[in-house]
């Protein structure tokens, strides 16, 4: 899908606002991968993510009157998507992991082994170029799903979607300080989860010292 020019997008939005489904569907085609991946990282299951993504676009079309030009349409869609994903998660998980147990989020330096010792030094130098195998992808995905919802939304919006702290604050209707704290606690939890399941990490991601 090519880049959508800002003027084209504005035109498609205004046509959608007057009820033009075809115009809206062009926006769907442009953003569906973003939205699907956002929801997939939130919920973990592909079929569920597809259903929730469909619901998201239906909800977005019904609410498009409320979209104000000038703000980012992508961020607006992501807000609907994260709300839909959270609603679905709450419906299907009777005992949600809330931030109430965030008190047990350790914020002190943890001693002992370090996650980075599990990864080969070559990759640690340039981690952006990781090519994750299926096993590791699944482990990270499971770790994300272990996060309390508010931390998960913040981490996914930040590290998967690349939103700024300001955009996330608008998106989740919280303060910058809250966003900063949620992202930090979410990442720390994820780090601990990966460390706890280090035996599942593929051999190629372990240091020589760990193999002995």
């Amino acid at each position, binding site marked *: 899908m090519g880049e959508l020019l800002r003027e084209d997008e504005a035109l498609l939005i*205004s046509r959608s*606002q*007057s*009820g033009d*489904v*075809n115009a*809206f*569907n062009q926006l*769907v*085609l442009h953003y*569906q*991968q973003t*939205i*699907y*991946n956002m929801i*997939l*990282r939130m919920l973990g299951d*592909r*079929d569920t993510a*597809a259903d929730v*993504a*469909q619901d998201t*676009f*239906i909800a977005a*079309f*019904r609410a498009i*009157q409320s979209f104000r030009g000038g703000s980012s349409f992508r961020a607006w869609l992501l807000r609907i998507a994260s709300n839909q994903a959270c609603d679905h998660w709450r419906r299907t998980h009777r005992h949600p992991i809330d931030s109430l147990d965030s008190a047990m989020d350790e*914020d002190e*330096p*943890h*001693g002992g082994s*370090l*996650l*980075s010792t599990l*990864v080969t030094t070559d990759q*640690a130098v340039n*981690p*952006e170029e*990781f*090519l*994750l195998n299926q096993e*590791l*992808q699944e482990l*990270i*995905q499971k770790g*994300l799903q272990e996060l309390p919802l508010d931390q998960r939304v913040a981490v996914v919006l*930040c*590290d*998967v979607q690349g939103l700024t*702290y300001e955009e996330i604050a608008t998106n989740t209707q919280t303060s910058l300080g809250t966003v*900063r*704290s949620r*992202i*930090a*606690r979410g*990442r*720390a939890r*994820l*780090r601990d989860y*990966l460390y706890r399941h280090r035996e599942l990490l593929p051999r190629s991601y372990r240091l020589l010292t760990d193999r002995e």
Partner: protein
Amino acid sequence: MAQQDEHLTTEQLSAFLDKQLSPAERAVFDAHLASCQQCQSRLADLRLTVALVRALPQEEVPRSFVLPSRLAPVAERPTPRPATVTPVPRQRGARVSVLQRTVRAVSTLAAVLALIFILSGILPPIHFGGGEATSSAGSVPAASNQSATSHSANTPHVQGTATFGSVQAAADGKKTPVPTPKSTPAATARSSIHSGTSPAVQPPTLPPFLDLSRPEGRLALGALLLVLGIIGLVVTRRRRGTVY
């Protein structure tokens, strides 16, 4: 100096990765990190965690999420007006809701008043009929009696040489003329009401069902207000359902 000895918080490490530290925080951060092996390792761990999440591949959509065109009529309902006209229905909605709220408030007030009237109509012997009658009929004659006896008791000390009859006459003329003529007719009138001749003494100027001094009147008015209040509440509730 003391700040440099404290380890960095996870939040500081995380914010550093996103370049979200304020200049002041950054100075403390740099000063500590340079000399702390442990925090350097923690930063490396957190950086790796973030890198792993960011390295998750974008997955292809399993199907297209374009909306079916049959969705149009459902979703089109609020949209046929051009954007410039949209404020108008919203204003009308606001006006309707203000009117509704007023009607509901008035109806609630009417229902509350109705309950008060009905209660006062049901419980006349305790609150209104009995209480009022005994207090007024009992207190006024008692007061006049008291004044009379006190005058007769006080006067000998004031005017010792005068005769008994002239003292009483003087006392009546000087002190009691104001209270006694007023209080005694009222007392007699009230006592006559109390004895059962009231309809003859006070001819009703209002139809009986609106006479608030009678329990039936209060009951009738209460029932009327209650009906009005309920109608008001029901009507506004039904209207709210259709508007939104």
